[in-house]
């Protein structure tokens, strides 16, 4: 589960990780109040107005701006709040900004030069252990660093038996070229950061940049925090941080019906049981000359009500020109799914697009009979190959 920067930072702070302080605001007026309050708390004379959306690259889209006066705070906040922010990660339609974080200016001049680093914590799937990945090249796209200067990316693996050790935090600080009080601050920063990651059941942290300030403090200027959804039951207060306005409304609705749905931009809708078969069905659609309009896994207990709900969700997408139902019955009985399709036709009324139904496995023969006798304009298939051919045929008509 994704959360906002301001929420991620509040969690980090609760674990003793130093952050760029800030106050969240939903209107331009509240932004000015936040700026005044922040000035009182931190003494900052300038402010950074940061759009709060669940996507990176906000600066490139004009969602992060420096304000040098309270008037500028108001002006910038009023422009950013409500804007449709387009970044390399949002897609071309962008994301609506509902909140801004008014943050302190941390790039103030001082006795030493500031320096930006990159740091993330994530699972190394090959070893089944967490790693801290970090680089001297902060503030940049890490994929780009990995491609151009891979020797500037370092990794520190954490042994689950003993946890992150002091020699490891020191190695990180040395590799980042730090000394003196900044060195010490970095070892503390890394230790607390990992403690937070472990403590909240995070699935990923990305702090880009980690900043060494001119007075040798180490702070998180940004925070991308992902939580392990399977562990949210242990953290009800973090579960509440979910912001459904950041998610596709149809995907949210599908989730409420226990359907795993992801909207895509193709023309053939699909309804499948099982994630792997669902992806394979999407591939089949492409090979048949179409493109999948969605990923939809109806799960292991596909009954008539769920099938009907799934149809309703797929049909919300006006780009859908055909629907492929592909069910391999194991525990799921195909005759029940077939009855669900017949009922859905009755209850929804006219389904305006052709439907190809492939039911295989448990009670497939009975299912075919139900479909055939229903008199519905459904294209039945038994083999996957037949289903693919029918998709092709329907699209070329």
């Amino acid at each position, binding site marked *: 589960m994704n959360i906002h920067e301001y929420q991620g930072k509040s969690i980090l702070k609760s674990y003793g990780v130093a952050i760029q302080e800030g106050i969240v605001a939903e209107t331009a007026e509240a932004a000015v109040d936040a700026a005044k309050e922040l000035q009182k708390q931190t003494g900052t004379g300038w402010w950074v107005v940061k759009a709060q959306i669940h996507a990176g690259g906000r600066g490139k889209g004009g969602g992060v701006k420096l304000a040098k006066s309270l008037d500028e705070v108001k002006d910038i906040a009023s422009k950013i709040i409500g804007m449709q922010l387009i970044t390399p*990660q949002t897609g071309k339609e962008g994301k609506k900004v509902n909140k801004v974080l008014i943050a302190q200016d941390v790039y103030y001049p001082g006795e030493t030069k500031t320096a930006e680093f990159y740091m993330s914590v994530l*699972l190394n*799937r*090959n070893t*089944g*252990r*967490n790693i801290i990945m970090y680089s001297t090249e902060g503030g940049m796209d890490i*994929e780009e660093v990995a491609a151009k200067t891979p020797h500037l990316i370092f990794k520190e693996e954490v042994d*689950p*038996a003993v946890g992150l050790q002091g020699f490891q935090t020191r190695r990180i600080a040395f590799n980042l070229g730090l000394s003196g009080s900044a060195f010490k601050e970095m070892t503390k920063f890394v230790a607390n950061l990992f403690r937070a990651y*472990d403590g909240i*059941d995070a*699935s990923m942290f990305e702090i880009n940049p980690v900043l060494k300030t001119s007075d040798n403090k180490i702070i998180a200027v940004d925070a991308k925090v992902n939580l*392990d*959804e*399977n*562990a949210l*039951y*242990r953290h009800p207060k973090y579960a509440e941080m979910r912001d459904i306005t950041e998610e596709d409304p149809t995907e949210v609705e599908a989730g409420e019906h226990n359907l*795993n749905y*992801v909207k*895509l931009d*193709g023309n053939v809708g699909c309804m*499948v*049981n*099982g*994630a*792997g*078969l*669902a*992806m*394979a*069905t*999407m*591939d*089949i*659609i*492409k*090979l048949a000359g179409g*493109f*999948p309009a969605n*990923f939809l*896994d109806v799960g292991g207990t596909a009954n008539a009500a769920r099938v009907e709900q799934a149809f309703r969700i797929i049909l919300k997408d006006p780009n859908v020109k055909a629907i492929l139902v592909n069910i*391999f*019955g*194991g*525990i799921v009985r195909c005759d029940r799914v077939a009855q669900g399709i017949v009922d859905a036709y009755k209850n929804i009324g006219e389904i305006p697009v052709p439907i190809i139904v492939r039911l*295989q*496995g*448990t009670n497939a023969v009975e299912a075919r009979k139900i479909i055939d006798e229903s008199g519905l304009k459904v294209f039945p298939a038994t*083999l*996957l*190959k037949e*289903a*693919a051919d029918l998709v092709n045929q329907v699209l070329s008509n």
Partner: protein
Amino acid sequence: MSVLVNKDSRVLVQGFTGSEGSFHASQMIEYGTNVVGGVTPGKGGSEHLELPVFNTVEEGVKATKANVSIIFVPPAFAADAIMEAAEAGIALVVCITEGIPTKDMIAVKEYLKDKPTRLVGPNCPGVITPGEAKVGIMPGFIHTPGTIGIVSRSGTLTYEAVDQITKAGLGQTTCIGIGGDPIIGTTTKDAVMLLMADPATEGIIMIGEIGGSMEADAAYWIKEHGTKPVVGFIAGQTAPPGRRMGHAGAIVGGAADTAAAKMEIMKECGIHVVESPANIGAKMAEVLGKAK
């Protein structure tokens, strides 16, 4: 011959008396699997499905000489159940449970490191040796004894491959559903190695997904050590980068773990890669010179 499970496997069901455990245990018994009992803490001493129920895996092993366990306990308790089975000396633990927190699985992997126990799963359909033992939730009737070993990260997509192999007249030695989570006990490569060493297996089907490097690891091993034809498929050629597609493990993270990159590596390593999942069975028959 077969791998992992056979008619001599003595199977203990953890989470025996729950609804999932009860349903699938009866299905397994009906298939002919030698289920010797089950474990539900607090219900020890009673009987369920005409079999003994134990409070702990240790008791169960002592009383029944069980060597395989299958886990149906809820996600919050599943990691504990895996470690309990390993501690009791179970040789093969098959964990069906979906939704175990990653942090719990990191601990499990560490715990199992120095133990002889093999874990299959979690979040998997299980293991079946057709005609001998079904230790999982797959529909038994689509399988038929034969010569093809199948390893797959997915559930229903494995059934699809099984069905095609059965219809191609080849049948299966053992089908291993390794699971779709980021941390699993038996990898694609581990499963391929087992099947490669099994004299009865003449060909191997390897079904993967986007995300991770397991298929590439298996492919490089096959290139060096493979002695039998392997047919491969990767699901998710049309999955957009960075979107979650049902399986937590199936997130396209970088260039090397996309479907296209994996298929390319597999081809380079001599695996017969099919682009369409509809051609898995036909391809295997063709490769073995047994096309109808």
